[in-house]
C-alpha cells in the first residue's frame, strides 16, 4: 500500500506540474486528499503491518499520520482562498500544489519508516518541498527565508547522517548490520557507549532543525513567517512532529542503554534553553506570525521536558504534541484571515478585530485560551501531566523557572491577542477592507474543538494508541 501511495503521489504531482487547466488541478488535489484519507484508514486498520521491509505502521506512526491527514484537509482546501489574487501566477501556483503534496507524502513516509536511513531520506525530502513552499512569493524576504531554511536544514541533515554513521560504528562487535529501529532497540544494552553518545549528540542536533529546539531552531522561524499561511500551518505542526518522531525513535533506543540518564540531561538542557529563548523573543516581537512560531518552540520545549522527565511525562508528551499540532495549525489559518483583513502582520497596525470579523475574533479568543494551556483546553491537561512528571522525577529546580517563564509567555501572548481583539488599530483605512467568508472559519473551530475534546475525554482507541507508542520506553 505504501508503495502505491508514494507512486500515486508522485504521479499526481507530476501531472499537476504540467497541468494548466484549473478544474483538472482541483480534481487532482481532491483525488490526493481522498487517497491520503484512504491510506491513513488502511494503515490504521492494519496496525503492526510491515511493508516493503522499511515501513511499519506502529502506534506512533499511526497517531502522527492521523494528525497529518486531519490537518492537511483544511490546508489543501483553503489554499485556494489564501493565495493572493494579484500574485496568481499559474506557474507559481502549480509549483505550490506540487510542493504541498510532496511535503505531505514525505511526512507520511517519514512517520512510517522503520529504518533510520529511510527516515533520513524522507526528512530530506520534506526540506526540499518545504523550501519550494517558502519561496512561493518570490520577493526578497522569502528568498532570504528560503536560503536560511535550505541551508540550516541541509547542514542539520548532514549532522543526522554523521550520527547514523556513528550509530553503525556503535553496533561494532554485535555483528548486526541492519539499522532497523526494532533491531536497534533489542541490541541497545550492548551498544558501544562512546559511539552511541556521539551518535545521539549528532542526531539530536540534526533533528532540532525540524523539531524547533536550540541550537538549530532559527531556520524554522523565518520559514513560518514567510511561507503562505496554509504551508506555515503545516510547518508549525506536522513538520515539527517529524523532528519529534526522529528524536523519539532514537530516544527509544537509548532508553535501553545505561546512557539513558545522560540523554535525558542533554534533552533537558536543550528544551529549557528553547523555552527561555522563546520567552525572551515573545516579549519583544511585533510580528504575529513570528510570535506564534516562537510559541511553537516553547511548546516543543515543554514536550521534550515531558519526554525527559519520564513516567507520566511520556504519555503527556505524545498527547501534547498531537493537541499542539491541531491548535497551532488552526491559529495559523486564522492568521491568514487577519492578514487578509489588515494586510499586515505587525500587531501595531492590527486591532479591533471584533468589528471586522466576528467569527474570526471569537475564534481568536478561544485560541488564546487553548494555546496558553488554560482549562478547558486539552493542552492544560497535558501540560499539567508534564509538570507532575517533572515534580515526581525531582526536577523541582527546573520546574520552578519553567513555570515563571510560562507565566511571562502567557502575559506576552495575552497582551498581543487582546490588543488584536479590542484595541483600535493605528492608521487603518476601513474603506478597502476585504470581507472574510465566515464559513472558512469552520475548519478552525473543528480543529480547536478537537483540542478540547481529545484532552478532556480521549477516546479509548486514542488512549490505547498513545500507551502503545510509549510501551518501549522504560
Amino acid at each position: 500500500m505504501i508503495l502505491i501511495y508514494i507512486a500515486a503521489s508522485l504521479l499526481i504531482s507530476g501531472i499537476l506540474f504540467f497541468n494548466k487547466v484549473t478544474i483538472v488541478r482541483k480534481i487532482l488535489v481532491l483525488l490526493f486528499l481522498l487517497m491520503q484519507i484512504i491510506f491513513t484508514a488502511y494503515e490504521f486498520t492494519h496496525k503492526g503491518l510491515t511493508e516493503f521491509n522499511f515501513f511499519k505502521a506502529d502506534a506512533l506512526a499511526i497517531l502522527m499520520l492521523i494528525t497529518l491527514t486531519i490537518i492537511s484537509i483544511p490546508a489543501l482546501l483553503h489554499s485556494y482562498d489564501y493565495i493572493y489574487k494579484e500574485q496568481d501566477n499559474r506557474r507559481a501556483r502549480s509549483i505550490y500544489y506540487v510542493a504541498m503534496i510532496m511535503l505531505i507524502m514525505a511526512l507520511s513516509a517519514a512517520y512510517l519508516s522503520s529504518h533510520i536511513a529511510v527516515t533520513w531520506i524522507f526528512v530530506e525530502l520534506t526540506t526540499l518541498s518545504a523550501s519550494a513552499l517558502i519561496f512561493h512569493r518570490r520577493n526578497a524576504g522569502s528568498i532570504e527565508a528560503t536560503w536560511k531554511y535550505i541551508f540550516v536544514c541541509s547542514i542539520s541533515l548532514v549532522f543526522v547522517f554523521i550520527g547514523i554513521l556513528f550509530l553503525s560504528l556503535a553496533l561494532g562487535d554485535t555483528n548486526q548490520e541492519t539499522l532497523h529501529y526494532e533491531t536497534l532497540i533489542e541490541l541497545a544494552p550492548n551498544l558501544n557507549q562512546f559511539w552511541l553518545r556521539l551518535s545521539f549528540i549528532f542526531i539530536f542536533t540534526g533533528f532540532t532543525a525540524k523539531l524547533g529546539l536550540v541550537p538549530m531552531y532559527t531556520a524554522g522561524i523565518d520559514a513560518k513567517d514567510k511561507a503562505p499561511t496554509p504551508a506555515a500551518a503545516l510547518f508549525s505542526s506536522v513538520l515539527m512532529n517529524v523532528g519529534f518522531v526522529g528524536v523519539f525513535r532514537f530516544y527509544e533506543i537509548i532508553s535501553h542503554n545505561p546512557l539513558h540518564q545522560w540523554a535525558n540531561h542533554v534533552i533537558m538542557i536543550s528544551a529549557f534553553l528553547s523555552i527561555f529563548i522563546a520567552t525572551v523573543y515573545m516579549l519583544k516581537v511585533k510580528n504575529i506570525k513570528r510570535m506564534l512560531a516562537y510559541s511553537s518552540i516553547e511548546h516543543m520545549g515543554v514536550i521534550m521536558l515531558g519526554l525527559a522527565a519520564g513516567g507520566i511525562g511520556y504519555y503527556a508528551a505524545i498527547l501534547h504534541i498531537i493537541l499542539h499540532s491541531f491548535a497551532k495549525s488552526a491559529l495559523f489559518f486564522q492568521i491568514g484571515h487577519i492578514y487578509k483583513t489588515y494586510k499586515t502582520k505587525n500587531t501595531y497596525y492590527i486591532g479591533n478585530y471584533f468589528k471586522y470579523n466576528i467569527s474570526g475574533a471569537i475564534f481568536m479568543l478561544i485560541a488564546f485560551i487553548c494555546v496558553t494551556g488554560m482549562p478547558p483546553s486539552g493542552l492544560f491537561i497535558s501540560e499539567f501531566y508534564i509538570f507532575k512528571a517533572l515534580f515526581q522525577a525531582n526536577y523541582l529546580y527546573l520546574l520552578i523557572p519553567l513555570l515563571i517563564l510560562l507565566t511571562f509567555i502567557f502575559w506576552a501572548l495575552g497582551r498581543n491577542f487582546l490588543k488584536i481583539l479590542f484595541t483600535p488599530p493605528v492608521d487603518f483605512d476601513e474603506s478597502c477592507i476585504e470581507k472574510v467568508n465566515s464559513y472558512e472559519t469552520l475548519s478552525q473551530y473543528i480543529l480547536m474543538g478537537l483540542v478540547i475534546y481529545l484532552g478532556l475525554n480521549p477516546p479509548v482507541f486514542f488512549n490505547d494508541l498513545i500507551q502503545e507508542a510509549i510501551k518501549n520506553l522504560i
Partner: protein
Amino acid sequence: MINILLIVFTMSLLFFAIGNRLMTYVKILALQGVLLFGIAFYGLIESNLATLIIILLETIIVKAIAIPLFLRYVIIKNNITREAEPYLPNFVSLIIVTLIIAATFMVSNVIHDIHNHKIYFVVALSALFSGLYFMSTRKKIITHVICYVLIENGVFILSLAVGKEMPMLVNLGVLFDVFVSVFLLGIFINKVGDVLQDTDVSQLSNLKD
C-alpha cells in the same frame, strides 16, 4: 596508497584556506572528487561489484565533474566577482585550519575503539570542521554552497570508513543528498540573482527580531 590520497585530501584543505578566487575553490572540489575516487577504489576493492561501480561512478561523475562544472556555470552566469572576499586574512585561515587538523588528530588518538580507521576519522572530521569554518568566514552565498560540498566530501570519507559494513542504502543517501542539495541551491542562486542585485550574504540579514 589510501593514506597518501587521504593526506593529499587534507592538504587540499590547507590550500583551500589560502585560495583567493572562487575558481580555485571549484578546482579544489574537482581535485577532491578525483581523490575520493581513488580512496573509494582502494578502500572498497574487495566489496561486491555493484556497490563498487555505483560509488565509483558517483565520485567521478558527480563529485569530480558535474558539481564543479555546475558551480562554474552558476558563477559565470551570475557574473559573480572572482574574489572570495574572506572576512579574515588568508594567513589566519591557514593557521586555524592547521589547528583544526591538529586538534582532530589529537582527539582521534584518544579514542581507542576506532576499527583501524583512525586516518579516515581525522580527515573526515577536519574536512567537516574546516568546512564550517570557511562557511562562517566567507562573504558570498556561492562560497557557502562550495563549503557545503566540502563538508559532504568529508562525510563521504567517513561513510567509506564504515562502508564495508554499511548497507547500500546509506551510500545512495550520500549521492541523493549531494545531488539534490547542490542542484537546488544552485538553481536557487540563479533566482537570487534575479531579485537581488548582488549575491552577497550581507543582503540576507533582514529577517530578525
